[in-house]
Protein backbone atom coordinates (compact mmCIF):
# COMPACT_ATOMS: atom_id res chain seq x y z
CA UNK A 1 0.00 0.00 0.00
CA UNK A 2 2.78 2.44 0.94
CA UNK A 3 4.61 1.51 -2.26
CA UNK A 4 1.50 2.35 -4.26
CA UNK A 5 1.13 5.69 -2.53
CA UNK A 6 4.81 6.45 -3.05
CA UNK A 7 4.49 5.55 -6.73
CA UNK A 8 1.49 7.86 -7.10
CA UNK A 9 3.35 10.75 -5.48
CA UNK A 10 6.47 10.10 -7.54
CA UNK A 11 4.48 10.00 -10.77
CA UNK A 12 2.68 13.20 -9.86
CA UNK A 13 5.86 15.07 -8.97
CA UNK A 14 7.62 13.86 -12.13
CA UNK A 15 4.73 14.98 -14.29
CA UNK A 16 4.51 18.38 -12.66
CA UNK A 17 8.22 19.10 -12.64
CA UNK A 18 9.00 17.87 -16.19
CA UNK A 19 9.86 20.66 -18.60
CA UNK A 20 7.49 20.68 -21.59
CA UNK A 21 8.95 19.69 -24.95
CA UNK A 22 8.03 22.26 -27.58
CA UNK A 23 8.68 19.89 -30.46
CA UNK A 24 6.34 17.25 -29.04
CA UNK A 25 3.67 19.78 -28.18
CA UNK A 26 3.92 21.25 -31.66
CA UNK A 27 3.71 17.79 -33.25
CA UNK A 28 0.64 16.90 -31.18
CA UNK A 29 -1.31 20.10 -31.41
CA UNK A 30 -0.10 22.30 -34.26
CA UNK A 31 1.42 20.19 -37.04
CA UNK A 32 -1.88 18.86 -38.37
CA UNK A 33 -2.82 22.34 -39.57
CA UNK A 34 0.50 24.19 -39.81
CA UNK A 35 2.49 21.32 -41.27
CA UNK A 36 5.11 19.06 -39.72
CA UNK A 37 7.86 21.55 -40.59
CA UNK A 38 5.75 24.71 -40.36
CA UNK A 39 5.12 25.03 -44.07
CA UNK A 40 1.38 25.47 -43.56
CA UNK A 41 -1.68 23.79 -45.00
CA UNK A 42 -4.91 24.39 -43.14
CA UNK A 43 -3.10 27.02 -41.09
CA UNK A 44 -0.64 29.71 -42.14
CA UNK A 45 2.96 28.76 -42.89
CA UNK A 46 4.84 29.57 -39.69
CA UNK A 47 8.33 28.78 -40.90
CA UNK A 48 8.47 31.64 -43.41
CA UNK A 49 11.39 33.95 -42.53
CA UNK A 50 9.27 36.94 -43.55
CA UNK A 51 6.72 35.88 -40.93
CA UNK A 52 9.04 34.95 -38.08
CA UNK A 53 11.20 38.04 -38.56
CA UNK A 54 8.15 40.26 -38.26
CA UNK A 55 6.13 38.82 -35.38
CA UNK A 56 7.15 39.11 -31.72
CA UNK A 57 6.85 36.12 -29.42
CA UNK A 58 3.92 37.82 -27.69
CA UNK A 59 1.95 37.68 -30.94
CA UNK A 60 2.51 33.93 -31.21
CA UNK A 61 1.65 33.37 -27.56
CA UNK A 62 -1.54 35.42 -27.72
CA UNK A 63 -2.55 33.69 -30.94
CA UNK A 64 -2.12 30.23 -29.41
CA UNK A 65 -3.82 31.28 -26.20
CA UNK A 66 -6.86 32.99 -27.74
CA UNK A 67 -7.03 31.42 -31.20
CA UNK A 68 -9.10 32.96 -33.97
CA UNK A 69 -12.80 32.77 -33.05
CA UNK A 70 -14.76 31.33 -35.96
CA UNK A 71 -11.66 30.91 -38.14
CA UNK A 72 -10.65 27.32 -37.28
CA UNK A 73 -7.61 28.14 -35.09
CA UNK A 74 -8.81 27.05 -31.62
CA UNK A 75 -7.91 28.75 -28.37
CA UNK A 76 -5.55 26.63 -26.32
CA UNK A 77 -6.73 28.16 -23.10
CA UNK A 78 -5.76 25.20 -20.92
CA UNK A 79 -2.15 25.30 -22.02
CA UNK A 80 0.23 26.27 -19.23
CA UNK A 81 2.49 29.29 -19.72
CA UNK A 82 5.49 26.95 -19.78
CA UNK A 83 3.93 24.76 -22.51
CA UNK A 84 3.01 27.81 -24.52
CA UNK A 85 6.53 29.23 -24.23
CA UNK A 86 7.97 25.85 -25.26
CA UNK A 87 5.89 25.78 -28.45
CA UNK A 88 6.88 29.36 -29.31
CA UNK A 89 10.55 28.54 -28.67
CA UNK A 90 10.24 25.57 -31.02
CA UNK A 91 8.60 27.65 -33.75
CA UNK A 92 11.29 30.29 -33.25
CA UNK A 93 13.97 27.63 -33.86
CA UNK A 94 13.08 27.75 -37.57
CA UNK A 95 14.60 31.23 -37.79
CA UNK A 96 18.23 32.16 -37.26
CA UNK A 97 17.27 35.70 -36.25
CA UNK A 98 16.09 36.80 -32.82
CA UNK A 99 12.42 37.61 -32.31
CA UNK A 100 11.53 41.27 -32.77
CA UNK A 101 10.61 43.11 -29.58
CA UNK A 102 6.94 43.82 -29.10
CA UNK A 103 6.05 47.49 -29.63
CA UNK A 104 2.62 48.27 -28.18
CA UNK A 105 2.54 51.98 -29.12
CA UNK A 106 -0.68 52.92 -30.90
CA UNK A 107 -0.41 54.33 -34.41
CA UNK A 108 -2.63 57.28 -35.17
CA UNK A 109 -4.05 57.68 -38.64
CA UNK A 110 -6.96 58.82 -40.77
CA UNK A 111 -9.19 55.75 -40.82
CA UNK A 112 -11.48 57.14 -43.53
CA UNK A 113 -8.51 57.50 -45.84
CA UNK A 114 -7.33 54.08 -44.63
CA UNK A 115 -10.70 52.63 -45.59
CA UNK A 116 -10.38 53.96 -49.13
CA UNK A 117 -6.87 52.58 -49.44
CA UNK A 118 -7.98 49.24 -47.99
CA UNK A 119 -10.75 48.99 -50.60
CA UNK A 120 -8.23 49.73 -53.30
CA UNK A 121 -5.29 47.59 -52.18
CA UNK A 122 -6.38 44.97 -49.64
CA UNK A 123 -10.00 43.93 -50.21
CA UNK A 124 -9.19 41.58 -53.07
CA UNK A 125 -7.45 39.16 -50.70
CA UNK A 126 -8.58 40.15 -47.20
CA UNK A 127 -12.23 40.61 -48.16
CA UNK A 128 -14.83 43.23 -47.39
CA UNK A 129 -14.39 44.59 -43.86
CA UNK A 130 -11.26 42.44 -43.50
CA UNK A 131 -13.23 39.22 -43.16
CA UNK A 132 -10.44 37.16 -44.75
CA UNK A 133 -10.21 34.56 -47.49
CA UNK A 134 -12.60 31.64 -47.70
CA UNK A 135 -11.94 27.98 -47.04
CA UNK A 136 -9.67 26.03 -44.77
CA UNK A 137 -6.69 25.87 -47.08
CA UNK A 138 -6.79 22.13 -47.67
CA UNK A 139 -7.10 20.19 -50.86
CA UNK A 140 -10.85 20.16 -51.08
CA UNK A 141 -11.35 23.85 -50.71
CA UNK A 142 -8.84 25.57 -52.94
CA UNK A 143 -6.29 25.32 -55.67
CA UNK A 144 -2.74 24.70 -54.60
CA UNK A 145 -1.30 27.73 -56.35
CA UNK A 146 -1.60 29.90 -53.25
CA UNK A 147 0.41 29.07 -50.16
CA UNK A 148 -1.97 30.80 -47.80
CA UNK A 149 -5.58 31.82 -47.21
CA UNK A 150 -5.68 35.56 -46.50
CA UNK A 151 -6.13 36.05 -42.73
CA UNK A 152 -9.26 37.70 -41.34
CA UNK A 153 -8.11 41.08 -40.09
CA UNK A 154 -11.43 41.79 -38.40
CA UNK A 155 -11.06 38.77 -36.13
CA UNK A 156 -11.03 39.47 -32.40
CA UNK A 157 -8.15 37.01 -31.90
CA UNK A 158 -6.02 38.71 -34.54
CA UNK A 159 -6.73 42.22 -33.26
CA UNK A 160 -5.92 41.11 -29.72
CA UNK A 161 -2.61 39.53 -30.73
CA UNK A 162 -1.30 41.96 -33.35
CA UNK A 163 0.12 45.34 -32.36
CA UNK A 164 -0.23 48.38 -34.61
CA UNK A 165 3.51 48.25 -35.14
CA UNK A 166 3.36 44.65 -36.35
CA UNK A 167 0.49 45.38 -38.75
CA UNK A 168 2.36 48.42 -40.04
CA UNK A 169 5.51 46.40 -40.57
CA UNK A 170 3.63 43.63 -42.42
CA UNK A 171 1.93 46.10 -44.75
CA UNK A 172 5.19 47.98 -45.30
CA UNK A 173 7.42 44.98 -46.01
CA UNK A 174 4.91 42.45 -47.28
CA UNK A 175 5.39 38.75 -46.58
CA UNK A 176 7.77 37.09 -48.97
CA UNK A 177 6.57 33.62 -49.93
CA UNK A 178 2.91 34.67 -49.84
CA UNK A 179 0.81 36.89 -52.12
CA UNK A 180 1.21 39.76 -49.60
CA UNK A 181 3.40 42.36 -51.29
CA UNK A 182 5.27 45.33 -49.81
CA UNK A 183 2.95 48.31 -49.97
CA UNK A 184 5.90 50.67 -49.63
CA UNK A 185 7.31 49.21 -52.83
CA UNK A 186 3.82 49.33 -54.33
CA UNK A 187 3.83 53.11 -53.89
CA UNK A 188 2.15 53.84 -50.55
CA UNK A 189 3.73 56.22 -48.07
CA UNK A 190 4.31 55.52 -44.38
CA UNK A 191 1.44 57.92 -43.64
CA UNK A 192 -0.86 55.95 -45.97
CA UNK A 193 0.04 52.79 -44.11
CA UNK A 194 -0.65 54.49 -40.78
CA UNK A 195 -4.12 55.26 -42.12
CA UNK A 196 -4.70 51.62 -43.13
CA UNK A 197 -3.56 50.49 -39.68
CA UNK A 198 -6.04 52.93 -38.09
CA UNK A 199 -8.80 51.50 -40.31
CA UNK A 200 -7.93 47.89 -39.43
CA UNK A 201 -7.87 48.82 -35.74
CA UNK A 202 -11.39 50.22 -36.14
CA UNK A 203 -12.59 46.63 -36.75
CA UNK A 204 -12.25 46.05 -33.02
CA UNK A 205 -15.76 47.26 -32.26
CA UNK A 206 -17.49 44.90 -34.69
CA UNK A 207 -15.15 42.05 -33.71
CA UNK A 208 -16.10 42.47 -30.07
CA UNK A 209 -19.80 42.44 -30.95
CA UNK A 210 -19.40 39.26 -32.98
CA UNK A 211 -17.50 37.56 -30.17
CA UNK A 212 -20.16 38.60 -27.66
CA UNK A 213 -22.90 37.15 -29.86
CA UNK A 214 -20.95 33.89 -30.18
CA UNK A 215 -20.48 33.63 -26.44
CA UNK A 216 -24.11 34.52 -25.81
CA UNK A 217 -25.48 31.82 -28.11
CA UNK A 218 -27.06 29.16 -25.93
CA UNK A 219 -25.91 25.59 -25.64
CA UNK A 220 -27.60 23.34 -28.16
CA UNK A 221 -28.76 19.85 -27.08
CA UNK A 222 -26.50 17.07 -28.40
CA UNK A 223 -29.21 15.31 -30.39
CA UNK A 224 -32.45 15.83 -32.27
CA UNK A 225 -34.93 13.26 -31.00
CA UNK A 226 -38.45 12.14 -31.95
CA UNK A 227 -40.67 9.43 -30.51
CA UNK A 228 -42.48 7.34 -33.08
CA UNK A 229 -46.08 6.15 -32.67
CA UNK A 230 -45.33 3.34 -35.14
CA UNK A 231 -43.61 -0.02 -34.84
CA UNK A 232 -39.88 -0.26 -35.52
CA UNK A 233 -40.44 -1.68 -39.01
CA UNK A 234 -43.08 0.92 -39.91
CA UNK A 235 -40.88 3.73 -38.61
CA UNK A 236 -37.95 2.54 -40.72
CA UNK A 237 -40.13 2.40 -43.85
CA UNK A 238 -41.49 5.88 -43.12
CA UNK A 239 -37.95 7.15 -42.66
CA UNK A 240 -36.77 5.64 -45.94
CA UNK A 241 -39.61 7.41 -47.72
CA UNK A 242 -38.80 10.70 -45.97
CA UNK A 243 -35.13 10.41 -46.94
CA UNK A 244 -36.07 9.97 -50.60
CA UNK A 245 -38.56 12.83 -50.40
CA UNK A 246 -35.78 15.12 -49.14
CA UNK A 247 -33.67 14.25 -52.23
CA UNK A 248 -31.20 12.18 -50.28
CA UNK A 249 -29.88 8.81 -51.43
CA UNK A 250 -30.24 5.96 -48.97
CA UNK A 251 -26.81 4.32 -48.77
CA UNK A 252 -27.59 1.41 -46.48
CA UNK A 253 -29.48 0.19 -43.43
CA UNK A 254 -27.31 -1.29 -40.66
CA UNK A 255 -27.66 -2.56 -37.17
CA UNK A 256 -25.86 -0.29 -34.72
CA UNK A 257 -23.81 -3.28 -33.64
CA UNK A 258 -22.66 -4.04 -37.19
CA UNK A 259 -18.99 -4.99 -37.04
CA UNK A 260 -19.01 -5.06 -33.26
CA UNK A 261 -20.49 -8.54 -32.87
CA UNK A 262 -20.68 -11.60 -35.10
CA UNK A 263 -23.01 -11.20 -38.09
CA UNK A 264 -26.49 -12.39 -37.14
CA UNK A 265 -25.99 -11.64 -33.44
CA UNK A 266 -26.59 -7.92 -33.61
CA UNK A 267 -29.32 -6.27 -31.55
CA UNK A 268 -32.05 -5.99 -34.19
CA UNK A 269 -33.87 -3.29 -32.27
CA UNK A 270 -31.03 -0.79 -32.89
CA UNK A 271 -30.95 0.27 -36.54
CA UNK A 272 -29.05 2.98 -38.40
CA UNK A 273 -30.08 4.42 -41.76
CA UNK A 274 -27.17 6.01 -43.65
CA UNK A 275 -27.96 8.42 -46.44
CA UNK A 276 -26.37 11.20 -48.44
CA UNK A 277 -26.96 14.12 -50.75
CA UNK A 278 -23.67 14.11 -52.64
CA UNK A 279 -23.95 17.71 -53.81
CA UNK A 280 -24.45 18.88 -50.25
CA UNK A 281 -21.63 16.62 -49.05
CA UNK A 282 -19.26 18.03 -51.65
CA UNK A 283 -20.09 21.58 -50.62
CA UNK A 284 -19.68 20.78 -46.92
CA UNK A 285 -16.28 19.19 -47.47
CA UNK A 286 -15.22 22.19 -49.51
CA UNK A 287 -16.04 24.43 -46.57
CA UNK A 288 -14.29 22.21 -44.06
CA UNK A 289 -13.11 18.67 -44.84
CA UNK A 290 -12.99 17.81 -41.16
CA UNK A 291 -16.79 17.48 -41.08
CA UNK A 292 -16.41 14.05 -42.64
CA UNK A 293 -16.22 12.48 -39.22
CA UNK A 294 -19.95 13.13 -38.84
CA UNK A 295 -20.73 11.74 -42.28
CA UNK A 296 -22.51 10.16 -43.95
CA UNK A 297 -25.81 11.46 -42.62
CA UNK A 298 -27.59 8.99 -40.38
CA UNK A 299 -30.67 8.48 -38.28
CA UNK A 300 -30.58 5.94 -35.46
CA UNK A 301 -33.83 4.13 -34.71
CA UNK A 302 -34.08 2.23 -31.43
CA UNK A 303 -36.89 0.20 -29.95
CA UNK A 304 -36.64 -0.15 -26.20
CA UNK A 305 -39.31 -1.23 -23.75
CA UNK A 306 -41.88 -1.17 -26.57
CA UNK A 307 -41.15 2.45 -27.50
CA UNK A 308 -39.54 3.52 -30.76
CA UNK A 309 -37.30 6.56 -30.78
CA UNK A 310 -35.37 8.23 -33.60
CA UNK A 311 -32.28 10.31 -32.98
CA UNK A 312 -29.68 12.20 -34.97
CA UNK A 313 -26.67 14.29 -34.13
CA UNK A 314 -27.43 17.98 -33.72
CA UNK A 315 -25.36 19.75 -36.41
CA UNK A 316 -25.82 23.12 -34.67
CA UNK A 317 -24.07 21.76 -31.58
CA UNK A 318 -21.31 20.15 -33.60
CA UNK A 319 -20.62 23.24 -35.68
CA UNK A 320 -19.08 24.77 -32.56
CA UNK A 321 -16.46 22.03 -32.46
CA UNK A 322 -15.00 23.21 -35.74
CA UNK A 323 -14.66 26.91 -34.85
CA UNK A 324 -15.51 27.72 -38.45
CA UNK A 325 -18.15 30.39 -39.13
CA UNK A 326 -18.44 29.26 -42.72
CA UNK A 327 -19.86 25.95 -41.54
CA UNK A 328 -22.62 27.49 -39.47
CA UNK A 329 -24.97 27.99 -42.41
CA UNK A 330 -24.50 24.41 -43.68
CA UNK A 331 -25.07 23.07 -40.16
CA UNK A 332 -28.23 25.16 -39.83
CA UNK A 333 -29.47 23.72 -43.12
CA UNK A 334 -28.64 20.17 -42.02
CA UNK A 335 -30.45 20.75 -38.74
CA UNK A 336 -33.58 21.62 -40.69
CA UNK A 337 -33.19 18.51 -42.87
CA UNK A 338 -32.81 16.20 -39.88
CA UNK A 339 -35.74 17.81 -38.08
CA UNK A 340 -37.95 17.44 -41.14
CA UNK A 341 -36.96 13.81 -41.63
CA UNK A 342 -37.81 12.93 -38.06
CA UNK A 343 -41.07 14.81 -38.25
CA UNK A 344 -42.07 13.17 -41.54
CA UNK A 345 -41.19 9.69 -40.29
CA UNK A 346 -43.27 10.03 -37.14
CA UNK A 347 -46.30 11.93 -38.42
Amino acid at each position, binding site marked *: MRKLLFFCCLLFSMAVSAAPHGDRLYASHCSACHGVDGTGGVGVPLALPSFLNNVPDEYLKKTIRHGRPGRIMPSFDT*LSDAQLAAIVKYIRSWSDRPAPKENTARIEGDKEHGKALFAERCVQCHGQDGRGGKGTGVTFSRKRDLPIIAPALNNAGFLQAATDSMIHSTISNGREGTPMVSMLKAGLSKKDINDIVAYIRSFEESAAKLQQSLEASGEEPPTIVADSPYSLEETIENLKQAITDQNFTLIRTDYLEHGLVEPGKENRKQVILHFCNF*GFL*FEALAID*PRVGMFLPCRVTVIEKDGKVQLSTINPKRLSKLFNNHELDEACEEMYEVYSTLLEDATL
Partner: protein
Amino acid sequence: MINRRMNALRDSLYTLLLATMLLFSRPLLASDLLMVRTTQGFPEAMLALQNSIREHGYNITRVQRIDVGLTGMGYKTDKYRVVFVGKPKEIQYLVNKYPVLAAYMPPKISIFAENGETVLVTANPLVYAEMIDDDKDKILFRRWESDVYSVFDDIREAEDK
Protein backbone atom coordinates in the same frame (compact mmCIF):
# COMPACT_ATOMS: atom_id res chain seq x y z
CA MET B 1 -14.75 -5.52 8.14
CA ILE B 2 -11.14 -4.31 8.16
CA ASN B 3 -10.43 -6.29 5.02
CA ARG B 4 -13.40 -4.71 3.29
CA ARG B 5 -12.17 -1.22 4.20
CA MET B 6 -8.67 -2.06 3.04
CA ASN B 7 -10.05 -3.31 -0.26
CA ALA B 8 -12.12 -0.16 -0.69
CA LEU B 9 -9.06 1.97 0.09
CA ARG B 10 -6.97 -0.04 -2.36
CA ASP B 11 -9.61 0.38 -5.08
CA SER B 12 -9.70 4.12 -4.44
CA LEU B 13 -5.95 4.35 -4.71
CA TYR B 14 -5.89 2.39 -7.94
CA THR B 15 -8.53 4.73 -9.35
CA LEU B 16 -6.43 7.68 -8.23
CA LEU B 17 -3.37 6.11 -9.82
CA LEU B 18 -5.21 5.53 -13.10
CA ALA B 19 -6.63 9.04 -13.09
CA THR B 20 -3.18 10.48 -12.36
CA MET B 21 -1.61 8.49 -15.18
CA LEU B 22 -4.29 9.50 -17.65
CA LEU B 23 -4.14 13.10 -16.52
CA PHE B 24 -0.41 13.48 -16.88
CA SER B 25 0.32 11.11 -19.72
CA ARG B 26 -0.63 13.93 -22.11
CA PRO B 27 -0.36 17.66 -22.13
CA LEU B 28 -3.32 19.28 -20.41
CA LEU B 29 -4.98 20.45 -23.59
CA ALA B 30 -8.66 20.08 -24.24
CA SER B 31 -9.12 20.42 -27.98
CA ASP B 32 -12.57 19.55 -29.28
CA LEU B 33 -11.03 18.00 -32.36
CA LEU B 34 -8.00 15.76 -32.35
CA MET B 35 -5.94 15.91 -35.53
CA VAL B 36 -2.71 14.55 -36.87
CA ARG B 37 -0.87 15.08 -40.13
CA THR B 38 1.57 12.55 -41.48
CA THR B 39 3.98 12.83 -44.37
CA GLN B 40 2.98 9.31 -45.38
CA GLY B 41 0.84 8.83 -48.43
CA PHE B 42 -2.79 7.87 -47.98
CA PRO B 43 -2.45 4.06 -48.35
CA GLU B 44 0.43 3.87 -45.86
CA ALA B 45 -1.34 6.10 -43.35
CA MET B 46 -4.55 4.09 -43.70
CA LEU B 47 -2.66 0.87 -43.06
CA ALA B 48 -0.89 2.36 -40.03
CA LEU B 49 -4.25 3.58 -38.69
CA GLN B 50 -5.95 0.22 -39.06
CA ASN B 51 -3.04 -1.65 -37.49
CA SER B 52 -2.84 0.71 -34.53
CA ILE B 53 -6.60 0.66 -33.91
CA ARG B 54 -6.53 -3.14 -33.73
CA GLU B 55 -3.42 -3.15 -31.54
CA HIS B 56 -5.30 -0.93 -29.10
CA GLY B 57 -8.05 -3.53 -28.89
CA TYR B 58 -10.74 -1.76 -30.91
CA ASN B 59 -12.84 -3.21 -33.74
CA ILE B 60 -13.02 -1.45 -37.08
CA THR B 61 -16.71 -1.81 -37.70
CA ARG B 62 -16.78 -0.21 -41.13
CA VAL B 63 -14.78 1.92 -43.54
CA GLN B 64 -16.93 4.43 -45.41
CA ARG B 65 -15.38 5.34 -48.76
CA ILE B 66 -16.57 8.91 -49.09
CA ASP B 67 -14.34 9.58 -52.09
CA VAL B 68 -15.75 6.61 -54.01
CA GLY B 69 -19.30 7.84 -53.45
CA LEU B 70 -18.41 11.36 -54.56
CA THR B 71 -16.46 10.24 -57.60
CA GLY B 72 -19.30 7.92 -58.59
CA MET B 73 -21.62 10.92 -58.61
CA GLY B 74 -19.24 12.95 -60.77
CA TYR B 75 -17.51 15.04 -58.13
CA LYS B 76 -13.75 15.38 -58.25
CA THR B 77 -12.13 14.54 -54.95
CA ASP B 78 -9.00 13.12 -53.38
CA LYS B 79 -8.91 10.06 -51.10
CA TYR B 80 -11.32 10.41 -48.19
CA ARG B 81 -12.43 7.61 -45.85
CA VAL B 82 -14.29 7.47 -42.56
CA VAL B 83 -13.30 4.68 -40.18
CA PHE B 84 -15.86 3.50 -37.60
CA VAL B 85 -14.23 2.28 -34.40
CA GLY B 86 -15.36 0.73 -31.12
CA LYS B 87 -15.16 -1.97 -28.49
CA PRO B 88 -18.34 -4.06 -28.47
CA LYS B 89 -19.02 -4.12 -24.73
CA GLU B 90 -18.28 -0.42 -24.29
CA ILE B 91 -20.49 0.66 -27.17
CA GLN B 92 -23.33 -1.61 -26.04
CA TYR B 93 -23.03 -0.36 -22.46
CA LEU B 94 -23.01 3.31 -23.45
CA VAL B 95 -25.87 3.08 -25.95
CA ASN B 96 -28.04 1.15 -23.52
CA LYS B 97 -27.37 3.44 -20.58
CA TYR B 98 -27.29 6.75 -22.47
CA PRO B 99 -29.73 6.92 -25.43
CA VAL B 100 -28.30 10.36 -26.23
CA LEU B 101 -25.09 8.67 -27.36
CA ALA B 102 -26.83 6.34 -29.82
CA ALA B 103 -26.60 8.95 -32.59
CA TYR B 104 -22.83 9.22 -32.11
CA MET B 105 -21.78 5.59 -31.67
CA PRO B 106 -19.58 4.02 -32.82
CA PRO B 107 -17.12 6.94 -33.01
CA LYS B 108 -15.42 7.75 -36.31
CA ILE B 109 -12.02 8.86 -37.52
CA SER B 110 -11.77 10.74 -40.82
CA ILE B 111 -8.67 10.19 -42.92
CA PHE B 112 -8.00 12.16 -46.08
CA ALA B 113 -5.23 12.94 -48.52
CA GLU B 114 -3.88 16.47 -48.27
CA ASN B 115 -1.38 17.67 -50.83
CA GLY B 116 0.69 14.48 -50.85
CA GLU B 117 0.36 14.00 -47.10
CA THR B 118 -2.46 12.58 -45.01
CA VAL B 119 -4.61 14.20 -42.32
CA LEU B 120 -6.61 12.34 -39.68
CA VAL B 121 -9.24 13.96 -37.52
CA THR B 122 -11.73 12.85 -34.91
CA ALA B 123 -13.90 14.41 -32.24
CA ASN B 124 -12.23 14.43 -28.85
CA PRO B 125 -14.06 11.65 -26.95
CA LEU B 126 -14.42 14.10 -24.07
CA VAL B 127 -17.06 15.78 -26.24
CA TYR B 128 -19.22 12.69 -25.60
CA ALA B 129 -18.42 12.79 -21.89
CA GLU B 130 -20.11 16.19 -21.76
CA MET B 131 -23.35 14.54 -22.88
CA ILE B 132 -23.65 12.28 -19.82
CA ASP B 133 -23.89 12.85 -16.09
CA ASP B 134 -22.25 9.88 -14.42
CA ASP B 135 -18.66 10.80 -13.52
CA LYS B 136 -17.66 7.15 -13.24
CA ASP B 137 -18.49 6.60 -16.90
CA LYS B 138 -16.72 9.77 -17.97
CA ILE B 139 -13.38 8.15 -17.20
CA LEU B 140 -14.05 5.78 -20.11
CA PHE B 141 -13.95 8.71 -22.50
CA ARG B 142 -10.72 9.95 -20.91
CA ARG B 143 -9.24 6.54 -21.76
CA TRP B 144 -10.58 6.75 -25.31
CA GLU B 145 -8.94 10.15 -25.62
CA SER B 146 -5.67 8.70 -24.41
CA ASP B 147 -6.00 5.86 -26.93
CA VAL B 148 -6.66 8.29 -29.80
CA TYR B 149 -3.49 10.18 -28.89
CA SER B 150 -1.62 6.88 -28.77
CA VAL B 151 -2.97 5.79 -32.17
CA PHE B 152 -2.00 9.15 -33.63
CA ASP B 153 1.48 8.80 -32.10
CA ASP B 154 1.78 5.40 -33.79
CA ILE B 155 0.90 6.97 -37.13
CA ARG B 156 3.50 9.70 -36.65
CA GLU B 157 6.10 7.11 -35.66
CA ALA B 158 5.22 4.99 -38.69
CA GLU B 159 6.68 7.81 -40.81
CA ASP B 160 10.16 6.81 -39.69
CA LYS B 161 9.82 3.11 -40.51
